[in-house]
């Protein structure tokens, strides 16, 4: 048995050559098998990410149903222009990611690098805009839980008098429960938000925060792919990591496609 198997083994897997290129891992028989396995693996991973984010969408659905008025009022505090810009930025970055994969498939190394760089740059733009949004909210004290309307974050606080863009309306309560907040929203209207509005901002921060974390991870992955591309590891025959990195990036875009309308746009227009 040993002799037969050895010969067969040698025949089956010539060491380096046409049938067994460097990028082909040893437990796979052909590059096509490896490629389809990698893609399937990535899609299953994407499915798990959808389910994870999905839990947050479930919480969103529940609270929106429980407190529709709060949602309608509170969502005006989100800057639609920033949100829409971020949407277009991410869509554009998805385009460049897809183009990067296309260039990799054609074996055009520098073009691939260029597209990857643009994609990563778009990610940076997204995060910068996000930073401004978060900073503004923190300044207004529109934060989850106990921090909502907390005097430490609000603008000028004077009991009963409107002096700035944010004001605590009710006096301190023992136990540190959240306060009502009066503030000027992004459309210029003065709004009075009940303590329960902290739930909207809780969802906002957790959902966009988790999304932002994935943007960071996506950027890291794409940077790694860029580095490998610059080192010449990819070719017409082997571009799987570019494909998988782009798939992850598209997932990040997909989540935002749903986040944007649900957080920024949905609610009764005035």
């Amino acid at each position, binding site marked *: 048995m040993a002799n037969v198997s050895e010969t067969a083994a*040698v025949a089956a*897997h010539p060491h380096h050559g046409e049938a067994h290129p460097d990028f082909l891992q040893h*437990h796979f028989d052909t590059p096509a098998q490896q490629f389809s396995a990698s893609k399937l693996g990535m899609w299953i991973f994407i499915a798990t990410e959808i389910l994870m984010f999905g839990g947050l969408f479930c919480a969103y659905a529940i609270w929106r149903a429980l407190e529709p008025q709060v949602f309608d009022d509170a969502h005006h505090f989100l800057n639609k222009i920033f949100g829409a810009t971020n949407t277009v930025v991410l869509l554009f970055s998805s385009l460049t990611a897809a183009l990067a994969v296309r260039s990799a498939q054609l074996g055009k190394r520098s073009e691939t690098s260029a597209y990857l760089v643009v994609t990563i740059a778009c990610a940076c733009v997204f995060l910068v805009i996000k930073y401004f949004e978060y900073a503004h909210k923190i300044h207004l004290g529109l934060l989850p839980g106990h921090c909502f309307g907390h005097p430490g974050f609000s603008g000028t606080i004077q009991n009963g008098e409107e002096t700035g863009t944010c004001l605590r309306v009710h006096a301190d309560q023992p136990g540190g*429960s959240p306060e009502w907040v009066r503030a000027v929203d992004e459309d210029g209207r003065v709004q009075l938000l009940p303590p329960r509005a902290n739930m909207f901002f809780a969802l906002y921060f957790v959902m966009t925060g988790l999304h932002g974390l994935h943007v960071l991870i996506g950027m890291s992955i794409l940077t790694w792919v860029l580095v490998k591309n610059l080192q010449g590891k990819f070719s017409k025959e082997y571009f799987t990591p570019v494909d998988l990195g782009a798939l992850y990036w598209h997932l990040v875009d997909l989540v935002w496609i749903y986040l944007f309308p649900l957080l920024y746009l949905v609610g009764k227009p005035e």
Partner: protein
Amino acid sequence: MTAAIDIPVAGGHVADAHGDPHANYLKARRGFASWALTFDHKRIGLMYLTMVSIAFLAGGIFALLVRLELFSRGKTIVDAETYDRFFTLHGAIMVFLFIIPSVPAALGNFFLPIMIGAKDVAFPRLNLLSFYLYLIGASVALLSIILGSVDTGWTFYTPYSVQTSNSVISMTLGVFILGFSSILTGLNFLVTVHTMRAPGVTWVRMPLFVWGMYATGLIQVLATPVLAITLLLLCAERFFGIGIFDPKLGGDPVLFQHFFWFYSHPAVYIMIVPGMAIVSELIATFSRRAIFGQFAIAMSSIGLAILGFLVWGHHMFVAGMSEFSTMLFSALTFLVAIPSGVKVFNWTATMYKGSIVWASPMLYAMAFIFLFTIGGLTGLFLGTLSVDVHLTDTYFVVAHFHYVMMGGTVMGILGGLLYWWPKMTGKWHDELKAKIGFVFVFIGFNVTFMAQFIMGSRGMPRRYYDYLPKYEPFHRASTIGSWILAVGLFITAYTLLEALWQGKRAPRNPWGSAGYEWMTDTPPCLANFHDTPTMTRGPYDYHLATAEELATGWDEVEAETPKG
């Protein structure tokens, strides 16, 4: 001269220097690094096996402590708060560190590629990563013991888990990391089964153990992410007080239970389906017959995977859900009994007119059927809404899940270990000791948990530190049963370990099985098969298997050993 099959190994693209791929995988490369950085699914499986065994020991020690405390009313060995920590740790360790990873990560990792004729899983590096995630997650979770220890019960219900001791965060983060380990294992198996089956291993012919691992992988991949977000939200609730589960802030504590049980109910199918998968293999081999209704059993595994997602609310009947939901979930729960029934009937039909061999693995398979049936039937009591109102949170529930998880899966694991030990280690164990161990395990188990059914139905609540005098005889019986069970488990563990050091060499196919995994060497070579097989028959086709395939090889081994 050395074959050109390259051995997957960390850090090296080609590893031909250190290890003949046709050599026994245990000997091919040596040294700590060759294990710690291995990509070989067999070695990873063994490392997992070692770790889950240690987890089982730890969880078991906590169980014995719990039972010891309950031996008498009032304080026996510890105070109430410590008791709470004991049962929480017992539950959390057993669920997250032992039973969920055990079969897939240990036996599944070892045998799934072999059973489909592949050289390894689809993503060996992810496989090693999932092992390290398991180690890290387990460490972080157990760190909670030092930090003050969790006393919420393994289910971490809010609002208590938001308010109680600090170590909830480390326990939940640990479980979060363990969840990723589980997801990666499931992902690996799904892709492996889809893309790496050898010629002739069609979906219909695929061994039932593989079908079981596939169904388990489906559940792992679909359910665990929701656990991840649940735990993240719990941590956010603790850290930032975001209020998602706090009624004062507009939240809903029952929502936590929805989130938690959406994972944890399918999780129990992650626990049982692999056990059933092992039993299918055992019954086929030890009845020496093709499995009756092989494809039906395969489909019932998938059926359990899918139906298991529909019934999570049955853990929440008295939690404060709407009445409508309770009725809906109760009705759906009855559906989920059907696939299990299919299996039990088909196994029994397989044995009818078979040539039964009462080897120790078969004894465990029989115990599985008997004990799982009891556990499953009592599940119907609990699924019946009106009855559950009385039985919920009593020892009836505790006994139910121990019958299915321990009487089910653990019996399956022990049977599987005894069955595959020769294949994995190349050593033969003492069957007599194994059978003696089985007797202790079986008797001890039933004494421990049957007493719990009785006292549960008479109203003894679970997780209680102290109890009324009328329950004391039952608690005493249960505790004594736990000691008998512990003895049995130690005897079994001893049998397996003894084989490693003093066992004689095992033949290639000691049980005379027609299964695919018995076609390889014992223990398998690094690449599993010397060259990729083409399967021309199913794994249970005894009528098609050649004499050579079924030959045990005992005569060769007998001829070798000096003393007869």
